[in-house]
Every structure is written in structure tokens, then in C-alpha cells.
């Protein structure tokens, strides 16, 4: 993680603005990468010393420092060259240290004489022996570039992510407006021991998901910073997001915002669908209804004290107020469905439950007029669409 001092950001009154690297930075990033390539196989310490110095071209100081530190973390430590098989095996540096320092302590001979004797015994030059003495320490090990080495564009995105995460590490809580793919975010947050709550939003705006830790209530703590920063690269896979956080920067709190389109290196893609059934349904519907958008895992909804996470939101592109939440239900009983719909009734958007006829766990008829669509093995996308049309134009007949 980058330290606070490495961050290219401006604090203006209560707000903090990150100075992201962009395409304009690619020329000096290219120079930086080629400088790093020159140190391939050389000591890590030498590379670190080189990176502390300016580049042979103009480069913004903080951005360069952040990029150098980020890329330095990607360059691996090499286990070191092995001597050719024809040469006699050399002792390891640790064994050499044990031997030589004990020899020096045991006798009265000066250090130079001890080194010369040991070098002669091992058949090494004096300088080689002195090199070998600490060759296993982290700074003395050769470095290797990742394979393939990052392009300037990738270096730019990775540096931006490191900067953004270093800023977010200094937050105690975040406010998130998110659409699509929200469930993995909440899952990850909960896995890290964070609290997720929905705060009321202004009319017409998406609700705010607030993520914080139990102790955040008492003070601005950095205890949850790492967990909060971990969420950031995953947000890149959400259809839309907007994250705001107050971060302790340069001795005061500054509000920083992140949103869809920020040039940040994304996390590995999430599993796109929970099941083949969902995947097939999304594909069928996409082909069938070009005027409707199907958003997977839209924002969570609050019903009383609990959050619910609908599977899909079906939204008409030309009339966005025409929206239907779709839940695909696995095993069910009539009582379960009734209770679920009761809960869903508390939210303002109409809901449609798709139920698997083969997974009914109890006999009994469903109450009439429930927005329920039965299916066997495959959800009928055309039927869903018809139902969505009907539900959002005010018709009231039972679907199934």
C-alpha cells in the first residue's frame, strides 16, 4: 500500500480530489518502465535506489512516486543465479555468515585475514565472498519483471488503483450508490465483518448503501480501511456505482468520491451468474426485448430491518419508471411465497416471482392474483416480458 505521502491529491476545503494518472502520463510511464527493465537481474536494493531518483524526463512528482512504488511491488524477487553444475557447490549465505563471523570472533586475526582465508578455502575471489555474504537478503536479491511486463496503460490503471485504495484505507465508513452486481460487494463486506445498511435517499434517487464497521460509531478509525479499500476494484464490475467516503488525509477529514468510469484497475471478474438457469434467462430476454434492460443484482432494498437483494431488475429503456423486480425462487411452499410477496410489497417497485414447479415443497394452491410465473427447467422469457408489460401498464390479471 502507498503511504499517505505518496498520494497525488488535492484537498480543497472539505473535499479531496485524486489526481489520477491518464493517457497524458503514458510517455513518462514508458520511460519509467524502460528504466525498470534496465535493472532486470540486478539487486532489488539498486532498483529501489534508482526509483528514488528522478527520471530522465519530466514527470509529475507524486504521480511518479506512486507509480514507482506500485510497479516496484510487481517486480518479483528472484531466488538468484545458481552456479553452473561444473562448479563446486557454494555454501548458502546464511551458512557462510555462521562460519565466518564465528571464525572472526574466535581468533585474534584481523577481519581481512579471516576473509582471505575463507575465500581461499572456498575457491572464491575475496570480492565474490563479500558479495555472497548477504546475497540472500531481500534487498540483495535480483529482481525480475512480471511476465508479460505491464504496458504503460496497465501501469497507469494499477497505479490509480493503488492510489485510490491508499486513500480509501483512511476511511472509516463509505456511502455507496450502486446498481448491478451489488450482491458480491455486500457479501465481501460482510465477510470482512462490516455492517451494511440502507440509508433513505431523496425522491427519485437510488438508495444509499452505507458500509462501516461496528467501531466506526465511536471515532474515525482506520480499523476497517483495508476491508473498505478491498471493495473498490470489485465495484468496477457493477453497472453503475458512486462511492463517497470521508478520509483522514494530511491531518484532517476530506470527502473523496469514486464513480463508474474512474480509471482504476478492476478486480478479477465475478462469476457472471449464479446458475445456468439465470444465464439462459438473461440471454433469452436480451434477444427478445431490445427495449428492456435487464440489470442483474440491482441495488438492495430495505424492508423493515432487513435487506433484500432481488435477482434482476427489468427496466424499460424508453420509460424508466416502468420497472419490475424479478426473483427466481428455488424450493418453495405457498406460505413461503405469500410471506415473501408480503415483504416485497413494502417496496415501491412491482415484483415478479419466477417459481420452479418441480421444486414445490408442499402441496396446496397458491392464493389467486399473486405476481407469480411458473416454469419448468427454463424460464420463459416471452412470458416474463408479457407479465412485465402487464404489471407496468396497470393490468391486474393473474399470470400463471
Amino acid at each position, binding site marked *: 500500500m502507498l503511504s499517505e*505521502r505518496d498520494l497525488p491529491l488535492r484537498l480543497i476545503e472539505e473535499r479531496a480530489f485524486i489526481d489520477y494518472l491518464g493517457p497524458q502520463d503514458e510517455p513518462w510511464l514508458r520511460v519509467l518502465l524502460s528504466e525498470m527493465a534496465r535493472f532486470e537481474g540486478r539487486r532489488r536494493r539498486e532498483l529501489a535506489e534508482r526509483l528514488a531518483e528522478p527520471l530522465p524526463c519530466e514527470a509529475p*512528482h*507524486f504521480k511518479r512516486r506512486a507509480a514507482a512504488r506500485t510497479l516496484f511491488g510487481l517486480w518479483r524477487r528472484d531466488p538468484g543465479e545458481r552456479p553452473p553444475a561444473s562448479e563446486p557447490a557454494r555454501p548458502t549465505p*546464511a551458512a557462510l*555468515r*555462521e562460519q*565466518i*563471523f*564465528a*571464525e*572472526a*570472533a*574466535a581468533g*585474534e586475526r584481523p*577481519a581481512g585475514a*579471516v*576473509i582471505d582465508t575463507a575465500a581461499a578455502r572456498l575457491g572464491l575471489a575475496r570480492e565474490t565472498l*563479500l558479495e555472497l*555474504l*548477504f546475497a540472500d*537478503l*531481500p*534487498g540483495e536479491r535480483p529482481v525480475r519483471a512480471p511476465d508479460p511486463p505491464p504496458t504503460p496503460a496497465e501501469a497507469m490503471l494499477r497505479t490509480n488503483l493503488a492510489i485510490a485504495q491508499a486513500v480509501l484505507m483512511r476511511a472509516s465508513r463509505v456511502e455507496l450508490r450502486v446498481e448491478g452486481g451489488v450482491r458480491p460487494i455486500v457479501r465481501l463486506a460482510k465477510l470482512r*465483518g462490516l*455492517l451494511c*445498511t440502507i440509508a433513505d435517499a431523496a425522491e427519485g434517487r437510488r438508495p444509499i448503501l*452505507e458500509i*462501516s*464497521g*461496528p*467501531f466506526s*460509531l*465511536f*471515532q474515525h*478509525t482506520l*480499523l476497517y480501511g483495508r476491508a473498505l479499500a478491498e471493495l473498490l476494484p470489485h465495484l468496477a464490475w457493477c453497472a453503475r456505482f458512486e462511492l463517497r467516503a470521508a478520509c483522514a488525509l*494530511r*491531518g484532517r477529514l476530506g470527502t473523496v468520491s469514486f464513480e463508474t468510469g474512474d480509471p482504476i484497475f478492476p478486480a478479477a471478474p465475478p462469476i457472471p451468474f449464479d446458475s445456468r438457469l439465470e444465464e439462459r434467462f438473461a440471454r433469452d430476454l436480451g434477444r427478445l426485448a431490445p427495449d428492456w434492460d435487464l440489470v442483474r443484482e440491482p441495488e438492495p432494498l430495505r424492508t423493515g*430491518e432487513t435487506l433484500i437483494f432481488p435477482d434482476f431488475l427489468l427496466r424499460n429503456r424508453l420509460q424508466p419508471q416502468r420497472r419490475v423486480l424479478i426473483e427466481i425462487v428455488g424450493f418453495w411452499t405457498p406460505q413461503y411465497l405469500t410471506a415473501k410477496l408480503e415483504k416485497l410489497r413494502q417496496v415501491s417497485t412491482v415484483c415478479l416471482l419466477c417459481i420452479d414447479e418441480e421444486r414445490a415443497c408442499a402441496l396446496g394452491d397458491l392464493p389467486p392474483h399473486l405476481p407469480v410465473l411458473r416454469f419448468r427447467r427454463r424460464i420463459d422469457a416471452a412470458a416474463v416480458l408479457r407479465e412485465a408489460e402487464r404489471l407496468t401498464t396497470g393490468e391486474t390479471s393473474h399470470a400463471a
Partner: protein
Amino acid sequence: MRLTFDRGTLLFADVPPELDLTQIPGVLWDERIGAPRAPARLCYPLVSELRRRGVPVADMPRPTLAPPSEFRPFELRPYQEAALAAWRQAGRRGVVVLPTGSGKTRLALGAIAATRTAALCLAPTRALCDQWAAALAAVWDGPVGRFGDGERVVGPVTIATFAGAYRHMAALGDKFGLLVVDEAHHFGAGGRGETLEMSIAPLRLGLTATPPAPGEAADRLGTLIGPVVFERTVGDLAGRYLAPLERVTWHLGLDPDERREHDALWAVYREARRAFEANHLGASWEDFLHDAARTDEGRRGLSAWRRARRILAYPRRKREALALLLGHHRAQRTLIFVADNQTAYAVAREHLVMPLTCDIGRAERLAALERFRAGELRALVSAQVLNEGIDVPDAEVGIVVAGRMGEREHVQRVGRLLRPGAGKRALAYELVVEGSSECRQAERRGARLALRTRPSA
């Protein structure tokens, strides 16, 4: 009413409708869950307060681990007994201040054995945790838990690094009744105080050789652990329990080329510093660092400062002086303290002295300490590893070539030499470059050391 532990905090349930808990200091209403919440540290004081108000508490978090039992009998020195008694008298909450080498760990073992409750021992580094484990093994055969650096084993007595405890206290906070905080002064500085806030442990023992001066840091320590309940200086214990100390400061010059380079670099730094101070009256060094990084002039100044410090870290005269001292004290066990790892390796190569740095693996470091103890190695050189807590027995001579962290570091370093031995007289050399910033630092260190080595009133 019921109190439950929730990830380092307390939640209240079945609150009588007439009771407004948020009126009690420390309790806040948590909108996120619609219930009152308080830091776990307040568990026992809050229960006392509720009972005082006549509110029945049906359930509350209690240490979930079984207490350790069957410690082998071990003796405490009279001042350790006195410290323990003072701590007990203070309600088993507070900080004990004893010099390095006077047996703070042993005192803590006495506290753990006496309190009969599960204990969590916190130490700043992994090396110190190893030392704690060894000290525990000497008096107790039970399972010792370890937390931090990838280890996650909980036992009736558990040892954790500060960093490990900080990350995992949400899970550990309701398991222990006693917290032992080694090198407790770290928590006065304000970092990671949540570690101690998130534990329900009512019994708390802090150990340090260098307590913070009265002020904000001391107050913070008082809140998190308790007040200083017992204090002895080197002067109090020197002679019988600690070796008497002799300090020698060598003022050395720089060679003309080094002097020229140093002074030129220092002038660049001074200029940048002057420019900053003109606009920021009373600003701190940290403020300067922040500000300097933002301008070309500031960056030049900082870079010049770093290079000048590098010259002072190990100039030719210091090299010569070190060679002379190592030759002179060849028969005695010597610790060499330098400013950075690079200097440690340079000393190691020149004088074939084993370096102890953070780069050297844990097993090799322990082996080197063992060989030093056995007399197979006569000297060790270190930048920071030996600064704090590490148990280095019987080193007679210390040579401080350069330091980075100020007066507290110096007190800790000199403390490495004070373990008593028959007829032992500890000797601490300090190499200082004349006409440089080191002179003022040496004065400050001397004053701090004098404070800690003088007998207390």
C-alpha cells in the same frame, strides 16, 4: 437487560423503556442497527454503573477462555513484588515503569499467575513475542496461543503482536480477562488505540521503560490501560539488580571532503526549512515533511537532509573510532547500534560482526543471539532490531554509531547493557560528529538518559 459482545463493541438488549442508555458516557445510539452500542473496554464499568442505578443485568460478556492454571513456582525480586502489589492496589489496572533488563516480563508472569484469568499479552514485534513464549514456557506447561504473522492459535495465555491484535481484536476481544501490554508507551502515541478499546478485559497491565511525559499521550495511556502505578529508574536498581553504567561520548570530526559535502547539503536543507518556517510558525517536523514534498525547493531540501544524514551515519572518523573500540573491547561482548541497515551491513563486512536486521530471518536471528549468549560471537550490529525489548544478556559494551529515532530509542538501546553480572560495569559509547545536528541530539539524549538513570525521589 442483556449485554452482548459484537466485534469489539457491546450491544444492549431488553433495555427498560424508562432508561436512556445514551445518557451514560461512552454509550451511543447506533442508527445502523437501532440499538445502543458502547466500546468493549467499558463492559465492566458500564455493568457497575447499571447496577448502581438499580438496573438488573441478566447477562454480560465474560472472558470465554478457561484461565491458565498450575504455574511452576517462581520468585520475584522485591521491587517486582512491590510493583505487583501496587498494581493490585490500583484495582489491577495500570502501567509499571521499570528499566530495561529489570525483568518486566517476569513481573507480568507473576500478574498472570496471580490473577487466574485468561491473558492476552501484546508486544510490538514478532521477536518480542518469541521472547514472551520462551519466558512463559519456563514457568508454565500449558498451551500458549499465538496471534499475528499468519498464526491464529488461541490459548489461555495468548501472545500477539500489536499489528496482529489490531486486526483480530474484533474476534479476540471477549476471550480474555487480563491484557498485558509490553512496551505500552506505543499506545500513548495514538496509533491503534482501538486494539485496547475493543477488549472487555477489566484487568490491564502496561509495561514500559520509557513512559510518555505528562500530557495527551500519558492521558491516553491512562484511559486505555491505567495510570502509572509503580516506577523505578536505573538509578534505583543499579548495583544490585542492574549493572552500573558509564557513558562516554566521543566527539569526532569529518574529513575535509565529507565536511564540504555535508555543509553544502545542510545549507540546502536549512534554506528550505527557513522558507517553510517563515510561513508556518510553530509547525512540526511532520508538517515540514508534508509541505516539503509538494514543492521543488522542499524536495531538494529533504533530499539534501537525507544525504547529509547518510554522511553522518558512518563517516571515516566513525569507521576508525569503531575499529579502535572493537579492538580495545575485543574480550567483551559488544553491541553496535547504527542508523540504518546499509550501515549495519557495511560494519558487518568491515569488522565481520554479525548483523541483526529485519532482513535476517527469525531463526538465524535467534541462533545469532544464542551464539552471542554463549560467547561464540563477541559483537552484534543492529539498526533497529535490538532497540526495544529483545533480551540480550550480559553485553558489557554498547557503541552507538548513529541513531534515527531520538531520545527514547537511545534510552532503550543503552538499556540493553544493563543486565547485571558479577562485577559488571556497563560502558556506553556514543559517537557524535562535531559541528552537526548530532551534537544537539546527543545533548537531548543525554538529558533523557540522565532522567531515567537518576534514582527516583
